[in-house]
């Protein structure tokens, strides 16, 4: 065990943890955050995605020690149901959800891409989501929501 400082959604936490622990467990169990979720634990689905230094990061395969001190944003760090972030609002407006379990993967991956490259093409978006899964197969609406958000970013 060792003391690690984590900055999550603008708040700083001092935690006494096994430094090899994947970040996901710290977020969802020690900090009781609901956005990042365990889907596969293998870096294959996207459910655990958070944004660190502008990159979409799969927290299930990221040792907590490797992100000590870095600014970490989870799905709930973007906005709230009372005040959703524009990309969350786009998903709400498009009703681009079935069970919703995959949303950290879809939303955080798309947001990281569009923050980096506001002019991302459809092909870029497709490419970024090529390793993200939604087993309810809400793909059509999700891509529509992402494009709606992208329009707003460009404008």
């Amino acid at each position, binding site marked *: 065990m060792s003391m690690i400082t984590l900055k999550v959604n603008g708040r700083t936490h001092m935690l006494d943890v*096994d430094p*090899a*622990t994947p970040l996901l*467990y710290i977020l*969802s*169990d020690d900090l*009781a955050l*609901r*956005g*990042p*979720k*365990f*889907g*596969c*634990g*293998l870096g*294959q*689905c996207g*459910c655990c995605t958070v944004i660190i230094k502008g990159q979409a990061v799969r927290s299930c395969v990221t040792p907590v020690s490797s992100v000590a001190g870095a600014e970490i944003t*989870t*799905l*709930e760090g*973007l*906005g*709230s*149901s009372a005040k*959703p972030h524009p990309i*969350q609002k786009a*998903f*709400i407006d498009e*009703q681009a*959800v*079935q*069970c*919703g*379990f*995959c*949303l*950290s*993967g*879809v*939303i955080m991956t798309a947001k990281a891409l569009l923050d980096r490259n506001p002019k991302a093409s459809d092909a870029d*978006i*497709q*490419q*970024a*989501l*090529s*390793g*993200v*899964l939604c*087993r*309810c*197969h*809400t*793909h*059509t*609406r*999700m*891509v529509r929501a992402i494009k709606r958000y992208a329009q707003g970013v460009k404008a």
Partner: protein
Amino acid sequence: MNCINPISRRTFLKTSGALVVTFSLAPESVFSQRLDGASSNQVDGWLSVNADGSVTAFTGKCELGHGLYTAQTQLVAEELSVPVNRVKLIQCDTEITPDQGTTSGAQSHPTNFNHGSLALACATAREALTRLAATRLGLPADRLGVKDGVISAKTDPSQKVSYGELIGGKKFNLTLDTRAKRKPAAEWTILGTPVPRIEIPAMATGEFEYVHNVRVPAMLYGQVVRPPAVGSTLVSVDENSVIGLPGVVKVVVKKNFLGVVAEKPWQAIQAANKLKAVWTPGTGLPKHSEIHDYLRNKKPTRDTYAVNSKDVDEKLSSAVKVMKSTYFYPYQMHGSIGSSCAVADVQNGKATVWSASQAVYPLRNTVAMVLGLQPENVHIIFKMGSGCYGCNGADTVSYDAALLSQAVGRPVRVQLTRKDEMAWENYGLAFVIDQRIGVDENGTIIAWDYEAWSPTLGNRPGMTNPGNVVTGFLAGFPPAAFAARTPAPDPTNFANNNNAVPSYVTGTVNGNSGGTGNVRSQRVLSRDVVSPFWTGPLRSPARLQNTFAHESFIDEVAAELKADPVEYRLRHLSDTRLMDVVKGASKAANWDSRPSPRNGARRGGISSGRGIACVLYEGDNGYCAVVAEVDVHQDTGRVAVKRLVIANDVGPISNPDGLRNQLEGGALHGVSRTLSEEVTWDDQKVTSIDWRTYRPLPVGAEIPKIETVLINRPDAPAAGAGETAVTVVAAAIGNAIFDATGIRLRQVPFTPERVKAALGKIG
């Protein structure tokens, strides 16, 4: 809702402001008794009007991601004429809600939206409230109208009384009245409109509490250790291999069930990986490549005739032409994106389990069996999981958590590893289907002969069979016995809940015709055999597999006779609603009327085609047709689905946007299952155990344009919508590939290798 403490209905109502002041002296308040099926014929079992006039309603049908929570809220709001945001719906809790058995996606609508259960309770309540208002206002009931929970005189709105004033906080003490009138669909203002899904804002912002987010004070984390191979049993466990590792609390063994409990999730995972256990070798598995022969030859069988007109052999021998084909479908998995999770707190002979089970009351009984408790000492609270698409790991992981919690006397959360989820779930059925038809001189089908084999082992646990899923089995409970039966008895009534009977026959049993087609000579024989793997309902169970075979075969026959596939279908159909979805989809798709395959299909390069398929789901539960347009990349064998046009008729539409969402999702789920999903194994164990070895369509895949045609039938009974589109897609894609290339794929999934192999054969 916070879930730190399980709450009784009484405290729930208290804390939610819905405390019911009973004015009757009857001691058996519905709120203090357990609401099993028997007590749900009471209005109070389904809803209460709070002092402020808002409504709390109770349902035994849960949200699975298919929009049912919102649709049911609309139903309550509509029938009672209150705004949607004045209705709070409580779903699936064995101490609060009525027992409505299992929520299977396609069955919830018929149950709660027709003339029974929740809908009837609301209608009964509205009529009772109107009677109370008539008395209070001194006016005849027919001169009163209701708006936003206020009843007023139609001619003088100042004469009014609100629900809250009439009954707020009191009981109805009323039995559901089967004569109570539902609001006619023509008067709907809430049902039938695209009310946004209530949970979406919380889901999109990470606020929503899934079962995976349930955290209970003093909670520990468990991990299970499953056998290394199918049929392995536990010989010994070396507890010392993990005792002393950080956080490890206990190693738990019960027969072949093995697990560890630790303080933190990561500690539990590491301990489970390090735990040394000796298992017997597996019992061996049939070769993957030979599974369909294995099913066909496996004995004993359980044989069932859905129809048997007993003249099929004779008709076939007199036919001008006889055609036959065989179709193959693989085992597929639910593959929920979140591996299954549950939290259990078993202490002092009582258990509380937070579970995403589709069946809280049945789960209460089987958890009691697994733990050796009385069912009344088990409380199951539904919390939504990730989409399940049928019997995924939700029940099995509930037993896992319960067993581990019982062993340590503290609450335990278990979330399965990806591998444990995928290697041991109750798979969707593999199938092998032989089809044979005869035609007369006009090319009309005169006899249809179907014989199919499919495997079964376990199922949903139901009320008495925890051994129907892996954990119950490992803990010592056998799966439901396989009841061999041959020969099949004659059918006594027509039922087509598995869609084993094709749409094109009359479905005649004992002189009554329940089918949708014209062909009178018909024999449909289904043979179940024991499966080497667990099986259970997966979105459109058996119906998808059968529809793939029927709708591919009718296409093959049409092609052989050089008939247009749409025209040839319509010629053999009698059900106008089924014909209407076929016409609706083909019209919207600008169907090019001509026989398949397309003239002049090139060899090499990209070749395009279109195909159609239709179904009356479960024989009575929703009409659907889809037109698929595909590009076949002949050099690589890749099939790209470019467009799907879906026409659907599920009776009265509760929520058009919710329905579209289900159709779109179902159709794409169908594409994924058709093109790439297949469970694999070696001679000992399942080898499709993660998203590299079981490959669905990712969000970034090339996805087809999807168009939906909704046919609204306000006066028809409500039918299910969650499983219609997924049922027809495989056949429509197969037919489109044939149209594009002239190759007929009879085995799902249509992988590039299979497409190329088929092209090679004719090329």
